[in-house]
């Protein structure tokens, strides 16, 4: 039985709220991370507009698997220099996506600091990446993908599929 994604979003917002600097910016990673970041942005009532990243241009497997067919534009609608930034993603696995996201953010400027918030930490890290906030840790066997989905009504759910 997988946890309820909507409840995890609420829990994640609750854990972020204490001591959050007022000029903090959230940056969601396409696609699931953006959905979660939208929830957090509303729940935390942040002034800085939400950022969105498509890390396709920074992925380390480009030379092996090429470009993703439908790349979205990244959108960082705020000044990056000296700002505390929280990268938001749905599921943290190898850490490679987070590495790509950090590289991309640095091409917009030099942030004051970068933190990481995820709904689920499923283990299996291949890089020294550790989330500051994870709503839940969950062991998922290799070869399966934990995926966040959004219904037409906008409801978030988790699903386990074969990779």
């Amino acid at each position, binding site marked *: 039985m997988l946890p309820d994604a909507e409840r995890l979003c609420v829990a994640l917002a609750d854990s972020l709220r204490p001591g959050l600097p007022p000029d903090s910016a959230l940056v969601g990673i396409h696609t699931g991370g953006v959905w979660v970041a939208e929830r957090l942005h509303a729940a935390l009532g942040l002034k800085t507009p939400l950022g969105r990243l498509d890390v396709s241009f920074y992925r380390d497997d480009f030379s092996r698997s090429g470009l993703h067919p439908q790349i979205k534009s990244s959108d960082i609608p705020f000044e990056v220099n000296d700002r505390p930034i929280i990268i938001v993603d749905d599921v943290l696995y190898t850490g490679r996506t987070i590495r790509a996201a950090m*590289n991309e953010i640095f091409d917009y400027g030099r942030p004051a600091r970068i933190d990481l918030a995820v709904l689920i930490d499923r283990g299996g890290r291949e890089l020294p990446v550790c989330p500051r906030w994870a709503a839940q840790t969950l062991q998922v066997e290799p070869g399966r993908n934990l995926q966040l989905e959004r219904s037409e009504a906008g409801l978030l759910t988790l699903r386990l599929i074969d990779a």
Partner: protein
Amino acid sequence: MRNPQLNKNGGLQHLLTIDGLPREILSTILDTAAPFSEVAEREVKKLPLLRGKSVFNLFFESSTRTRTTFEIAAKRLSADVINLNISTSSTSKGETLLDTVDNLCAMQADMFVVRHASSGAPFLIAQHLAAMGLEHIHVINAGDGRHAHPTQGLLDMYTIRHYKKTFANLVVAIVGDVLHSRVARSQIHALITLGVPEVRVIGPKTLIPTDVDKLGVRVFHDMRAGLKDVDVVMMLRLQNERMQGALLPSPQEFFKYYGLTADKLECARPDAIVMHPGPMNRGVEIDSAVADGPHAVILPQVTFGIAVRMAVMSMLAGG
């Protein structure tokens, strides 16, 4: 006969011409170009996609402008860019085109951007690479003779889609020296493949190629009739050496009958856009008032061109 620019899986191996490319590939290139255009607004205008790759700009015919846009695109993708301007005099000293290519392959080239005065030269290079088993090296045609200039055609399509949102229901006119224009040929194939219902070419009979209607266009010799109700006007550059002689009597007469003026532009739809591949001959094919006027999207074309070239290079390099 397999289209030499597609790989075994039907993906893009080289970009040599738009003729014969399926609509899905053209749409994918345009879709992919969109996120690349955002990169230009960042503090660091660089992506790591072609890091460690060597892109050779192989220009057998000089063109500072086109070479620069390819150079910027490749550099924004973090590639190492090597510019080679090979005048025809040095090739006539004995080294053949393929000798040059072999030499550069030995220098671990990953991509060739080729400009050549002879139609088909990039095909020759692509076929040679295939024969040598060098499938990992990609070729982009940056203009060959009168044949094709596919990245220009694609950036024009990107521009049209940016302003008109869709290709359905559009009427597009291509005006001027169609005969000698590789740009016009790439535009015609791209417009028709992307579903533009009416493509027109306008020019005097000396500058319209034989049987061009068989490519799917309507031919007009009267510019006002040809511009009637068009959504997009694509002007072509008239080369200096063709302005007087047996093709045309004078640039003045050409301007009078085929130069785009505000007056003639009134025949087009009120929201028509005006494009030009550059560099413009003001007062020959286009009046300054139009070139700098509200309908012109000539400078955005240049900006979009970099994103489109980045998209093409990334798609090729990513296999």
